[in-house]
């Protein structure tokens, strides 16, 4: 909401500058976002054009004789629109100061000295137009010699106030002035509403058929209008406040809107069928052409303002073009009403219209101020267009909206704020805000005027007291901890932070990507339709299609990031993200609408670390090593088995499980998916479900070995398809408790080194007893038993 400082000072006496007012209002909850000067000039006078002729040296320049009430002076003017003699222009003579800081001096232009200049709008800081000089008419009320700034109400400052939705009363100058009065103790000068006498004889009928949608409807019938432009001072004020000047009739409604926050609408009475207004629910499908040139279809939820035949306005939102005031309008019906905020809001939202009127009706105008606003507007119309009151005022208000009565306990204010504030001071503040206050000791009885729909409870009054007294005067204390808080942090969040630290140590960079991803990327993962990951939850109103599916895979976003980093020439990438995936519940009832699982994903591409140049290219075992190390940091030991994840290379991937429970997957990214995402380099990925990990076994110290260990190696050939895991399982079944560690040292398959269909392996076994030094004989016997068992379990060929 734009607020004119000059206008404010007409309503409340204040010596404060725009900047000071901004600070005052901001600290009281009306945040002022900017203060902009308007028309900051001096010494400019109105002058009458007496004669004009071309400049002898330049055909684009004109020599203009202007009369300032005392003498005629010749000025050089470059504008294309120098008017006929008799018109009034604005002349900045030598000594005048312009908003850009320039002080005018006589200046020679192509051989002729010009004493100052004739001004365009932008040169006076009144707008952006530089199409020509300002040309005034007689109606603008400036006579030759008049000080232009004084007559036009300038200079001014415009305060850009951010009015929160709870304060509809501050959507007009009067409300803001009332705040200033309360905050500074200055007196409010309520603008008078001069009585109007019935002069004309036109009449109209108004029927209120939807009192729920329109609790109060007032109308004045005015005749004898002459529609034309408003005087310059009015046009400039509207323009400075961001409202387009249209005609003296419409401008009058806007002046009242800006002053009192009450939207008004003027209908051309002679275009209303039957000179009648009916306020009713629209019929479903009923159509109206609104002032913005659109045809709108209404529903029976909308409040329609109709004549005998058709809707002529969408109540509280926008008027219709059929009854629009035009140059030929002579009589108007002026509407001032209180419409149901919820109904207006629903209609405005459905139509996608947000107007000055709907903005205010949605928040709630003052139902008690409706008729006064109409009178104030009629007064403006009388002054601007010669209107007369032609019929008795109509005011339909079947059920009065009563002011709210509240009781405030002064002790409650103190308890909630933690601030010692006597009851008397509390009452004083409420009274300064214009509330009717009846203090009775510690209890203050309050009658809240209807212009403050935000004050309905005791706590609302406490807020008023706090903000006017000043938040700055509230002390800063720390609340005592009565007992240990009962909420413990979610385990997944603790795990996630430990995982982050581990991955950071393993050289991974943490990224954060959007939770909504391109549906095509999820489809590219190749999950079957039966898999929930193939049916992502979608947004109803995404910003763009590529951000319309809630991710069902965390790897997808990371792979896109991998692709774009590779494209930028980054070759060595180890990336991870911790975040949620979103799965449909498919009807299963639960505490949260979707199944949100906290996961961790990593991708890597490039080489192992080398010195001065990169080491060997990464392979699956680099990714597996990361997963093993990461899980070990979280206290888990995992198993890895072949798997069939569609987006991973079919031969180079594994399911990760803990005690038989699947917790994730890892593998080489499938070449087809890489192609779709534009990843040229080989890449490896893993996903772990942090929610599925479960609790790690408690960490307990194992006794440190006190006796030496003995190592035995075993080298053999075995069928190539027997996995290391299967061999390890056979070893684990057969080994003596003295065998405390088993490791694979070699796996080689080069033809020539191994028989056809076989692979060579070297394993190492460590023997140790906790209570003694083992003898060679003991080790030998344990190792031979192991060997015998292995031979019977597997077909090995010892080397």
């Amino acid at each position, binding site marked *: 909401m734009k607020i004119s400082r000059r206008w404010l000072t007409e309503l409340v006496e204040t010596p404060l500058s725009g900047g000071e007012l901004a600070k005052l209002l901001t600290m009281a909850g009306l945040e002022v976002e900017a203060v902009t000067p308007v028309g900051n000039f001096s010494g400019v006078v109105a002058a009458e054009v007496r004669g004009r002729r071309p400049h002898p040296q330049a055909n684009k320049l004109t020599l203009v004789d202007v009369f300032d009430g005392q003498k005629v002076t010749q000025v050089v003017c470059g504008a294309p629109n120098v008017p006929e003699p008799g018109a009034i222009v604005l002349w900045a003579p030598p000594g005048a100061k312009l908003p850009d800081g320039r002080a005018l001096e006589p200046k020679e232009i192509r051989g002729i000295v010009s004493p100052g200049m004739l001004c365009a709008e932008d040169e006076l800081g009144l707008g952006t137009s530089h199409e020509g000089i300002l040309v005034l008419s007689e109606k603008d009320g400036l006579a030759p010699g008049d000080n232009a700034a004084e007559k036009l109400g300038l200079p001014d400052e415009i305060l850009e106030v951010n009015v929160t*939705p*709870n304060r509809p009363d501050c959507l007009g100058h009067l409300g803001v002035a009332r705040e200033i009065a309360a905050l500074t103790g200055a007196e409010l000068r309520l603008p008078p509403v001069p009585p109007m006498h019935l002069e004309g004889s036109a009449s109209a009928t108004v029927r209120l058929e939807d009192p729920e949608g329109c609790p109060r409807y007032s109308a004045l019938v005015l005749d004898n209008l002459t529609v034309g432009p408003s005087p310059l001072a009015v046009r400039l004020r509207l323009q400075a406040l961001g409202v387009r000047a249209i005609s003296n009739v419409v401008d009058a409604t806007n002046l009242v809107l800006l002053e009192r926050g009450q939207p008004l609408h003027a209908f051309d009475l002679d275009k209303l069928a039957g000179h009648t207004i009916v306020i009713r629910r629209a019929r479903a499908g009923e159509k109206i052409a609104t002032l913005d040139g659109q045809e709108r279809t209404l529903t029976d939820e909308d409040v329609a303002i109709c004549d005998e035949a058709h809707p002529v306005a969408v109540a509280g939102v926008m008027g219709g073009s059929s009854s629009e005031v035009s140059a030929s309008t002579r009589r108007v019906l002026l509407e001032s009403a209180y419409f149901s905020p919820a109904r207006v809001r*629903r209609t405005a939202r459905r139509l996608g219209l947000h107007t000055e009127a709907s903005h205010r009706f949605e*928040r709630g105008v003052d139902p008690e101020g409706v008729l006064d606003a109409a009178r104030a507007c009629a007064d403006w119309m009388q002054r601007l267009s010669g209107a007369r009151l032609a019929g008795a005022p109509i005011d339909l208000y079947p059920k009065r909206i009563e002011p709210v009565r509240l009781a405030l306990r002064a002790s409650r204010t103190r308890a909630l704020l933690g601030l010692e504030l006597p009851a008397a001071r509390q009452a004083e503040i409420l009274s300064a805000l214009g509330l009717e206050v009846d203090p009775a000791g510690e209890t203050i009885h309050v009658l809240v005027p209807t212009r403050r729909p935000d004050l309905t409870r005791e706590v609302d009054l406490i807020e008023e007291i706090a903000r006017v007294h000043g938040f700055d005067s509230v002390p800063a204390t720390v609340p005592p901890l009565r007992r240990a*808080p009962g909420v413990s942090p979610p385990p997944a969040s603790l795990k996630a932070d430990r995982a*982050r630290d581990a991955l950071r140590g393993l050289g991974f*960079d943490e990224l954060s990507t959007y939770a909504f991803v391109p549906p095509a990327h999820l489809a590219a993962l190749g999950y079957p339709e039966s898999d929930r990951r193939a049916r992502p939850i979608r947004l109803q109103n995404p910003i763009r299609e590529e951000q319309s599916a809630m991710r069902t895979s965390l790897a997808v976003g990371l792979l896109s990031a991998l692709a774009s980093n590779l494209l930028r020439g980054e070759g060595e990438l180890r990336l991870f993200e911790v975040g949620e995936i979103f799965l449909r519940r498919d009807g299963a009832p639960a505490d*949260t*609408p*979707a199944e949100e699982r906290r996961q961790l994903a990593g991708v890597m591409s490039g080489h192992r670390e080398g010195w001065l140049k990169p080491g060997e290219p990464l392979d699956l075992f680099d990714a597996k090593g990361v997963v093993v190390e990461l899980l070990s940091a979280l206290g888990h030991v995992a198993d890895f088995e072949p798997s069939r994840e569609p987006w991973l290379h079919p031969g180079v991937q594994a399911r990760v499980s803990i005690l038989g429970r699947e917790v994730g997957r890892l593998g080489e990214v499938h070449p087809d998916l890489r192609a779709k995402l534009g990843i040229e380099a080989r890449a490896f990925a893993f996903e772990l479900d942090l929610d599925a990990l479960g609790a790690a076994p408690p960490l307990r110290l194992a006794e440190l070995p006190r006796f030496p260990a003995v190592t035995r190696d075993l080298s053999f050939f075995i069928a190539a398809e027997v996995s290391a895991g299967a061999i390890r399982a056979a070893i684990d079944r057969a080994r003596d408790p003295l065998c405390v560690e088993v490791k694979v040292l070699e796996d080689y398959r080069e033809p020539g080194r191994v028989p056809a269909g076989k692979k060579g392996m070297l394993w190492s076994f460590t023997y140790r007893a906790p209570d003694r030094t083992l003898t060679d004989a003991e080790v030998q016997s344990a190792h031979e038993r192991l060997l015998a068992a292995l031979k019977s379990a597997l077909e090995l060929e010892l080397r």
Partner: protein
Amino acid sequence: MASSPDDLKARLHGLLSEFQAKIERAHTEQELRKVFADYGGSQGAIRVAQKDALKEAPNAEKKAIGQLSNAVVAEVERALEGRLAALHEAERRRDLERTVDVSLPGRVRRLGHLHPTTLVRREIEQIFAQLGFTVAEGPQIETDFHNFEALAMPKDHPARDMQDTFYIEGEPELVLRTHTSPVQIRTMLSGPPPIRIIAPGPVYRKDDDPTHSPMFNQVEGLCVDEGITFADLKGVLLHFAKRFFGEEWGVRLRPSFFPFTEPSAEIDFTCAFCAGSGCRTCKGSGWIEIGGAGMVDPEVFAHVGYDPERYTGFAFGWGLDRMAMLRYHIDDIKLFFDGDVRFARQFK
């Protein structure tokens, strides 16, 4: 063959000279030990000569022969020790002559980097933990009830305009949460006061312009108990500002409006760019708006079944990414979600 002790003496001295000459030519410990074994070992030339002499010598001379041989062996051993020490010393000197170009890069296992939002989130969680606040979480796909209704924003409330909302397709009652405040509701519904939580996490608004990101992170705080005051809110925020930014930092609360708090306040912190002296970022005011706060509205308590006469509480919230922007002087929030490693790798 001469067999007098004098002969033996001459012979042993001859061997000793040979030994000394040979060890001078030996340059490794292994060669040295070999030479020693040839002369001074139990099968070496000295003991062989001793045995030969003993075979022929009369008994009276045997003792002298033994003493003579032992003396020569001892001499040989001393020579060996001396030579070994010299060799070791030479080796040590050679080793100490090695040099490297220390200006070449080190061989490292590169550390990764944590996201700036993670860094400030952890810091914030730790600061509030000092005051007894524990971490709470909630879902990102929320019901209209938790995100709006229970926070005193019914369907037709104009305050809904303040938060452009993403809706879930086919589910008119589901939204992407527009703030972390629904976690307040879930926490209060789960049990009675006292409550002290801090709830960080992603939130979503349908804003897409250069200064907004449709997904960003917030952190929410909630404290409910008997006797909690607006002054407590101020004290807790002041504690936070001083721990997070520095002892000289301040907090300003400015009246505002949120449907779920009453009174409501905007939280301003001393501007991190100019330390309060006024600059372009803070429009000369010395303050930067960080987030919102207030005393929990009785209507919210009604939705979760708390008695507003018995309990009071405060809530606050702000953008986590925005905190990171202030801390690290980042001017574009989109960098947080771009996945560019040139950004990520700056957060050491």
